[in-house]
Every structure is written in structure tokens, then in C-alpha cells.
């Protein structure tokens, strides 16, 4: 058990190290977009593009050997010295520190909605298989999974913002943070975020719960005279939580992060996705790197938490054996 946790921690650290190394390799092996940008700019201004190229390269320490560059890169990455953002004229770390709150206020509610509503409907569908409600839920899930999130956001904006005038169209960061007005700005973004996640959680919850609906122990529980609700929660949902936790973490990262990116750009919410978008557009490499790596770190930590959660959720898991 302790061996399992220890090994898991070591892998998380090793994965972090490898990912950072990989980004260095990718950046080192390709022409720096910033350099090309500077050269292009110089050509526009009528000065020598090669000179501008050399200047930018020099600023980035291109004169040093690859190993020196690598070591200084790794040291600064791990000491959280992530450089200056040219877009915001600030330290990258302080840009991130200011931005993450705006991501959290949409991502956290959407996640809670996804878990509660998604798992709830999924369980109901599984225990009422082949009823009209089940078919309706399955169909809705298909729509939720398939609808392109950016298009959905635009349609919601068009209908609720432009046509009905019920909600504001774009985000205004001047609005007081703790106010009902602020909430009205967040309704549409959270709806878009939650839709795909709810649909996905619902499908998985249904599929996983179905495995246990006709298991022998649920029959025993019913025979003992337990109520349907108790059977559903204690004997169907409990064993289904283990695979669902796995899926939840993967989904959070895959669906909610990706959707949050697009939603922040469309509604203009100054969260991490919006910052990353600005960085990509303005060729702000330090900020691009930071906003790419932060979701990776979050994923690594989330995967670690997921594996540790297993030890609590499923006493049957064997920590020594090889998983199939």
C-alpha cells in the first residue's frame, strides 16, 4: 500500500520532468515563432531581417550550447521563474495568479453540475432501462456530446443575448465579483461548459451502473427487503464509483478544460484559456509555455489523486498485480 503510493508519487514527478523536457525539445528543435515574427517585422520596417533574427536568438541564449540551454531552462521551470510576458508586461507567474480565479468560477460550478446531474440521470436511466425516459436521456446525451461547444456558445449568445436580451453578451470584468449581476454574466458560459460534461458523465454512469443492475448482490439486497433507493445507492452506485472516478478525471481534463478554453475566448472571460489565446495570437512564448504546462500539471496531480482515491473507494484493488 505505502509502496503503491510511493511508486505513484515517483511516477508523477518523473512524468512532470519528462513533460517539461519534451516541451524544451519541441521548442529547441523548431524555429522559434517569435524569431520569425521579429524577422518579418524587421522586413516590414525596412531593416535587415537577419539582424533582427540574430538579436532575438541572442536574447534567448542561442549562443550557448544545447546542454547549457537545457539546464537553465529546467532550473527556471522548476524554480517557477517562468519569465516575462510581453503581452501583459508582467511576470508570467503573476499573470497566471490573476487569471486562474476567472477559470475557477466557471469550471468548478460546471464540474459540480456535471457530477450531480450527470450521475443522477445516468443512474435513473440504468435502473429504468428501455423506458421512454431512458431513451430520451440517451438521445439528449448524444446531442450534448456531439454539439460543437463553440457553435453552441454562439447560438446561446444569439438567442438569449441578442434576440431575447435576457443575458449580457460579453463578459465585463468591472462587475463586482460577489454579486448577482456577475452571476448573470456566468450563466451562459457555465451552461455551455456543463452541457458536454453532463452528457458525457451521464453516458458513462448509465453504462457502468448497468453492469451492476442485475448483479447477484442487488438481487440479494432486494430479497432482504431493502428499498429500491437503497439498492440503487448502496449496491449499484457504490461499485460503479471506481470506474466513474477514472472517467471523471479524464473527462474533466478532456472536456471541461477544452471547453473552458473556447468559452473564455468567446465570452471574453479573462481566465487561463483567454490568457493562453492572447499569448498564442501575440507570439508570447513564455506565456504560451506556461498556459500549456499548467493544464498538464493539473492533469498529473488529478491522476495522482484519482489513483489515491481508489485505495479508499475500492478495497478490492490489488496494488501489487499488473493491471490488464
Amino acid at each position, binding site marked *: 500500500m505505502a509502496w503503491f503510493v510511493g511508486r505513484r508519487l515517483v511516477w508523477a514527478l518523473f*512524468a512532470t520532468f*519528462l*513533460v517539461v523536457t*519534451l*516541451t524544451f525539445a*519541441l*521548442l529547441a528543435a*523548431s524555429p522559434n*515563432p517569435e524569431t520569425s515574427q521579429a524577422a518579418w517585422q524587421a522586413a516590414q520596417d525596412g531593416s535587415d531581417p537577419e539582424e533582427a533574427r540574430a538579436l532575438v536568438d541572442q536574447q534567448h541564449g542561442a549562443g550557448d550550447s544545447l546542454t547549457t540551454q537545457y539546464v537553465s531552462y529546467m532550473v527556471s521551470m522548476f524554480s517557477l521563474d517562468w519569465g516575462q510576458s510581453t503581452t501583459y508586461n508582467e511576470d508570467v507567474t503573476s499573470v497566471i495568479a490573476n487569471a486562474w480565479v476567472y477559470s475557477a468560477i466557471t469550471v468548478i460550478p460546471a464540474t459540480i453540475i456535471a457530477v450531480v446531474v450527470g450521475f443522477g440521470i445516468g443512474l435513473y436511466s440504468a435502473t429504468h*432501462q*428501455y423506458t421512454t425516459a431512458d431513451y430520451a436521456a440517451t438521445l439528449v446525451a*448524444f*446531442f450534448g*456530446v*456531439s*454539439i*460543437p*461547444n*463553440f*457553435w453552441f456558445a*454562439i*447560438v446561446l*449568445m*444569439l438567442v438569449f443575448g*441578442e434576440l431575447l436580451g435576457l443575458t449580457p453578451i460579453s463578459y465585463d470584468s468591472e462587475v463586482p465579483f460577489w454579486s448577482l449581476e456577475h452571476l448573470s454574466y456566468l450563466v451562459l458560459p457555465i451552461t455551455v461548459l456543463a452541457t458536454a460534461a453532463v452528457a458525457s458523465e451521464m453516458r458513462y454512469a448509465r453504462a457502468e451502473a*448497468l453492469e451492476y443492475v442485475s448483479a447477484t448482490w442487488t438481487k440479494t439486497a432486494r430479497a432482504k427487503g431493502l428499498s429500491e433507493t437503497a439498492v440503487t445507492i448502496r449496491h449499484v452506485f457504490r461499485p460503479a464509483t471506481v470506474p466513474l472516478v477514472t472517467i471523471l478525471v479524464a473527462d474533466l*481534463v*478532456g472536456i471541461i*478544460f*477544452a471547453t473552458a*478554453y*473556447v468559452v473564455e*475566448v*468567446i465570452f471574453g472571460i479573462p481566465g487561463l484559456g483567454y490568457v*493562453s*489565446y492572447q499569448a*498564442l*495570437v501575440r507570439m508570447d512564448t513564455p506565456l*504560451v509555455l506556461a*498556459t*500549456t504546462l499548467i*493544464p*498538464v500539471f493539473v*492533469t*498529473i496531480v488529478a*491522476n495522482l489523486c484519482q489513483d489515491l482515491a481508489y485505495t479508499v473507494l475500492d478495497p478490492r484493488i490489488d496494488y501489487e498485480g499488473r493491471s*490488464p
Partner: protein
Amino acid sequence: MTASTDTTADRERAPTLEPIDWEVVASERDAHRARVTARSLVTAACFLGLLAAWAFDHVARASHEPFLTLATGVAFLGEDGVLTASPSHVDWLFGLTLLVGVRYALVPLWENPRLTRYYWRRIARNRLGVYSLYFLAGVFLVGLIGPLVLGDPEPQWDLGHTPPVGFGGTFAHPLGTTRNGEGILEIVVAGARVSMQVGLIATTISIGLATVVGTTAAFVGGRVDDLLMRGVDLLMTFPTLFFILFLVYIYGGNLFVLVLILAFTTWGGQARLIRSEALQRREEAYIDAARAAGGGPWYVIRRHVVPNVSNTVVTGATLLIPIVILFEAVVAFLGFGDPSVWSWGRIIADGRESLASAWWVSTIPGLVLFLTVLAFNFLGDALRDALDPRHEVNRGR
């Protein structure tokens, strides 16, 4: 006497082994071998032909003249009835993908009509799946032929926004126009080709990679398995969209590069699935038999493991296509895509500026994108029900 007559009769009635005419067997075997050789030759010739045509187009010929000119004599086709084609790298890769599809999907289905009918009956149980298949076939054909018939979207600067038919528009532009006067219909048709190309090419590469990695890991096992699967774990710690955007930032959003980026970032999950499927297959008796008969690891993987995980591969591929199409659309929507290509994501982004005054620019292409993705998901679900025996338990009624 009776006893002796009985034995004679018995001997006459006694079951004899069916006589084998070894010459016939040998000739049948030779005919089969000849067929296999002929097919390999035709396949090789097709692939080499395509390669030669690409090399001729992009290496030997540096001119910008169209690769192919076809005078059809039908006035509404192309420019004055002359069809021209100047295929890009992506177009050639698309041709290669289609060739792979014909060789490894259509030809086997054609050669085994009984099995084809069996699968079709199973898929046909799911009506939504069948309608989705028809719809996707339609989108595919429109994407393949449509741009040749309608031509590229041409701006008409004086025209500006015109609404679709039924909202005050004319049949000259049935789905309305953009701010620059480009017809939405032409853009949607051009976008259909881009989406189909990206979806099919990237998925083929991705699923091919996943199959190689998944079956190798499962079959070879040991260190190789650990190494490959830890690699997959590492790949999958990158949230896909962020990884794609990072790579697009470094390598640019040219359609050809984007297709490769999408292919190399999406194969991890499928590799895991295929590995777990192949681990079960590895224990089967026919694998032992193939090994005992002297089959090397690559031969056994290619001839016995891969065909027996093909159900997982087919379903996985069908469900990967919509994911890839959506990623391409998001990249184009954010403005990091290929500016020379009319992607559905790009036109949806263009329509954002004039959402209130010209709703059709964003909504119509978006609806087509939505329906395409939905149809792929329905079809994938129908295929899983039809091909995966494990799902039959839930279909008891």
C-alpha cells in the same frame, strides 16, 4: 453362407474415406496462390501509381498549372465546362487514405458477401445508425464532388450580406452570403471536403499507430509493453486541445501539418483499448497454433492478432473521426487554422462579428458540423452494438 455374405455386404457398406484427387487440390491451391499474388500486385501497383502521380505533381513539375484538365462539355460544371484539379499534399494523402479504405474495408466486404449481409442485418437493427450512414455518405460525396461542380467560393464585394432563400434571399445564393458576398452554400461544400479529409486521414494514421502500438505491447509484453504503455500514459497527460494548440503554435496551422498533428496527438486512448483487447486474444488457441506452425511474432500479430481486434479498431475509428473533426473546427475557429482553406470552424468564427444582423453565416455551417458529428457518433454506437459481442448482454429483450 450367411456369415460370409454378411461380411461382404458389410464390406460394401463400410464407410470409405472420400478419395482425394490431389491434382485438383494442388490446382485449387495454385489458383488461390495466384489470386493472392495477383491481388498483392494490383494493390502494390495502385499504391505505387499514386506515389508516382504525387511525385510527378509535386517534385518533377514545379509549374502552377492544374494537374488535370477535363473538358466535360457540360456548361455548369466548373469554368465553362472544363474541370481542372490542382491537388495539394492533403488531397494526395486523402487519395492514399481512400485507397487504404478500399483495399482493407471494401474489398474484404465484397469478397465475403455472406458476412457482409450478416453485419448489415445487425447494423440495420439500429435505424438511427443506418440513417447516419446515408447522411455521412451524402456528406462524403458532396465533399468529394461538390467543390468540382460549384467551384471555390468567390467574393462579390458589391453584394454584401444576403439572407438565405425563404428569408428574403434569391436562388443565386440559396444559403445566403458572407459580408464579402461569398456564397454560404459553396463554403459549406468546400468545408465538407476539408472536414472529411481531416477526419478520415488523421483517423487512419492515428488508428494505425494505435493498432501497431497496442498489439505490439500486448503480444510482446514485458519491457516493451511497459515502455510503450508508459509512453501512452505520458502522451495522455497532455490535455489534447492544449497539446494541439502548442504544436500548431510551433509548427503552424497549414492543413497538412494540422492533419499530422491531429493524428499524432489522438492515438493514446485507442492504443490502450486495443492493447487490452489484444491481451485477451493472446491467450487464444489459434495464436498457439500459429506459433507452433512456425509463425514469427510479426506474422502472428499481422495475420492473427490484428484481424481479431478489428472490431475494436473499426468502432474506435468511427468514434475518433468526429473528435478529430471537432478539433480541426476548434483550431480553425480560434483562427490558428489554414487561412487558404474554407473550414467550417473558420466560417463560424467569421459570422461572429455580425451575429445579430446576419445570423446565417455562423448558424448554417455550424448546424452541418453538428449533424455530421452527431451522425458519426450514432454510427459508431450502432457499429459497437453490431460488432462487439460484449454489448449483447444488454440487448436481451
